[in-house]
């Protein structure tokens, strides 16, 4: 399932999607929002044939209308498991438009969404995956899914980031005494979070963990923000996140959790729903 626009990124987007189809042994639906013309059909056909001869696995949908609506509707009609979108990292204000469609789809889609920062023609190996370990119902599912993905993509390292909000420390540091207290409290919280994540890790089937080095990293900081920054600092290849519960106008104004990452994609981002 991929949203297509005739942009310079088209070729790379399609190639990335085709590779995904290969890795996960699945089918693909290409959605083009806009008029169907022979020329465009030709271009896409050529792109697909350059990759695989197995045309049954690819279905092309041509529809007109609001891109967000069309993509979401097509996805649910076809029972898609994943929507792939080629996003552009922010460099200037002009690129924001693409971002806003991607954002809307991310928020409203019924299935998981993969945002590609830099779609490329050639295969890029995926070495390092960063997953959130938030204290939320969906986290377990997200972590399980990311192990599966790591196996399929051949990643060697998986880091689970436990973001702990500063407010939870509940000690305001003013002098040496409160600093010691806060440090102790942080250790306790880390310990607690750690055991929670370890519990989830135990539930991961052993054959999923083969050949993958698992690391946990507690971070005290703003939820949703720190994990993005962390992924960028350590140069992760994929960031896997829980889907947000629901977002409203206020979340745009006062960004939290996932909105920080959508505003400034650190790397490829997969949002699990």
């Amino acid at each position, binding site marked *: 399932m991929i949203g297509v626009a005739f942009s310079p990124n088209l070729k790379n987007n399609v190639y990335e999607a085709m590779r995904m189809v290969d890795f996960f042994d699945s089918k693909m639906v290409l959605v083009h929002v806009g008029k169907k013309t022979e020329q465009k059909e030709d271009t896409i056909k050529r792109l697909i044939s350059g990759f695989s001869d197995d045309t049954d696995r690819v279905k092309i949908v041509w529809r007109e209308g609001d891109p967000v609506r069309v993509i979401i509707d097509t996805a649910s009609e076809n029972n898609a498991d994943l929507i792939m979108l080629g996003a552009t990292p922010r460099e200037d204000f002009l690129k924001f438009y693409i971002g806003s469609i991607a954002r809307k789809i991310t928020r409203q889609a019924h299935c998981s969404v993969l945002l590609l920062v*830099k779609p*490329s023609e*050639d295969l*890029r190996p995926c070495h390092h995956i960063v997953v959130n370990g938030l204290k939320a119902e969906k986290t377990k599912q997200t972590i399980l899914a990311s192990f599966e993905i790591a196996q399929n993509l051949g990643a*060697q*390292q998986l880091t689970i980031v436990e973001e702990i909000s500063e407010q939870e420390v509940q000690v*305001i*540091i*003013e*002098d*040496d005494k*409160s*600093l*010691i207290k*806060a*440090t102790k409290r942080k250790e306790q919280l880390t310990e607690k979070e750690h055991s929670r994540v370890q519990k989830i890790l135990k539930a991961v089937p052993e054959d999923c963990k083969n050949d993958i*080095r698992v*690391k*946990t*990293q*507690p*971070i*005290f*900081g*703003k939820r949703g*923000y*720190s994990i993005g*920054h*962390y992924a*960028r*600092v350590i*140069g992760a290849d994929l960031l896997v996140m829980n889907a947000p519960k629901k977002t409203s106008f206020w979340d745009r104004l006062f960004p939290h959790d996932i909105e*920080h990452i959508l*505003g*400034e994609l650190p790397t490829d981002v997969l949002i699990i729903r």
Partner: protein
Amino acid sequence: MEKINTSKFLAQLPKNIFSGFVVSLIALPLGLGLALASEAPPISGIIAAIVGGIIVSIFGGSNVTITGPGNGLVVVLLGAITTLANGDLFQGYLFTLAAIICSGVLMIIIGFLRLGILSDFFPSSAIQGMLAAIGISIFAKQFHVMVANIGAKGDTISLLATIPKSIYSLFLPEYNHLVIAAIVGVISLLIMIFYGKIRHKYLRLIPAPMWIVLLVIGLSYYYEFFSSAPYPIADKLLVQIPDKVFSNFPSPDFSSVLKPKFIGVVIAITLISSIESLLSIKAVDKLDPEKRRSNTNKDLMALGIASIASGFVGGLNVVTVIARSSVNVNNGGSNRSANFFHSIFLILFVVLFQDQLGRIPLTALAAILVFTGYKLAAPKNLKGIAKIGREQLIIFTATIIATITTNLISGILIGILTTLIIHFILNKSAILFARNLFKPNVLMFKEEVNGIYFISVKNFSSFLNFFKLKRNLDSIPEDSDVVIDFSLCDFVDYSVQESLIGYQEVFKKKGGSFEITGLDKHGTASGHPLAVRRLFSFSQKMKIGSSLTKRQEDLKKVASNFSWNYFPKKDEDATYLQDFIFFKTKKIKYTYNNILNKDSSFKISDVEFSEGEFIAQKIIKTTILTIDLKKEIPVFTLDREGLLEFIYKIAGFKDISIIGHPDFSKRFYLLGENSERIQLFFTKELVLFFESNPYYHIESNGDTLLLMRKERIASVKEIKELLDFGVRLEKIISKINYNELLLKSVQIKP
């Protein structure tokens, strides 16, 4: 615990009493002088010191600070007293007392809401400019008083301009009666200036301001008892002390509380006293021999309470003062009791020596203030600022001019505005700031392996968002190791870098380390280590090494300690690294910050290389050590078991186990083509060495070793460790006679 504290307190008590005594010797003349400079009754300065010392020592949150009337406030208070009642000084003083009380309430609120952090929003150069402006104002006004012209009035500029006239008029016959007083003033100034140069043990027991007081009182007694001539200094040039200091308090007048002028004064007093106190507390914490951290918010609340109390009994407002605090530390003050005793001694002085205090000429006190004003505005400060960069000089002078020509609040606001505009110009746009101002930009985490706190700062880091970084820094125990990385940060300003240097000092003192990395590549406007740094866009030519950062200065020191050579400039010839397996799939762009030993067999460098191509390209920087062994050894790579970043799936390479060392084989990945030779090479000593030392990624290409640890630039401390490890490893390897071993083994199995 409680008992230990009490006995420690008692043991330190004599020292604190002594220190409090010495401080009171300075506080007495300064209190009188500062009050006079504000056109308030002289005793009001002493009252502020007494009340401040007692209240803040009980409720405060700092340890070795001294509180009392402050320099910075002179200008505000002077303005308030002279203008609030349209020139009626006494009525103006009563209004000002009310303003002091109101500002005390504001201070308590600031402390309670923990808003002390607000002081971080003032750019460093603007604050320095403001302090210099205060110094100039004090200097301009008090110079006239020092040469016995107490009637001089006007704004700072006209006061400065009329200084020659005041001096000249002394030589006119009608002002002859003032000459002695003026001479006393000038001699006092000379004492202040040259006191620092005297190294005499006993002379230095008494601080300079007290010497002046003692000498002038002595002079008045000379005229009273030994000379037939009358005391040549007129009464109006002497300090006026009311007869009943402690029973007849003036009552503050609250009748103009709602007037805009009054509110302006309250805000100005609060602003200046908070800034002055917070700056002083920060500076004094660095002097504290026990390296304690002050609770600034608690201190602000205590200062607020003290100001209220002081205002009700006719005193000026109370701030934390740096000069007196440093005297306290130098004389062995170790806890808050020193502040308390300084108040007690002041009470004793006023009660016992009331008559003697009345003999002090104003000119002598003015001389002390002239010196203080000069210190605040010394040309030395200007030079220091200019070195950091032309733009800091612009901010500094803009703030000074604005402060002198308008008032303190507009002055500091203009300073902030100038800084902002200069930051915009330096970046050629305001978008970077506008877009990222409210976004979080600091990531901090503790590295699991070695417990180092790693901080990465994104976007920009200036006085506008420093509080976010500061909040993270403050939550790190100072005995830990910190690495702060600015490589994702486009712009770092001087205020931030200056504060970071402060943190560096504190961490160093308390046994931790604090390293700043990622700035080496930023472009600068001047050669100063703290100059504003901006990441150049790709079109501009990068000039690494044109001005050294703090890290580079440290590297230089490390190199010179070993008497090795240091080359900060980038070197694009990195062919010597190409045949290492680690770099096979990577493209080395260049090396920089190279440290070489005499025969160039040891070489430490920062390497920038890229992985992948075109859009999938990832640029990575790391620090490596190469050792040229000058002999042949097998090709191998050695890694910690499970450190996956460094594992290569290259055909023909397999994990080699060393017979007889199962633990080593379990903990390390040893890879290489020729396993027999490698097994021969890994002798018992070598295995033991690796087992008992920290882990590094080690590679051999046949005659050279490559050592590294992380895919990031190493801190200076890490470099030292790496170097130490490398030197010891080389020693062990040089002892292994690999060729001989090889020959022997060939003989065994032909």
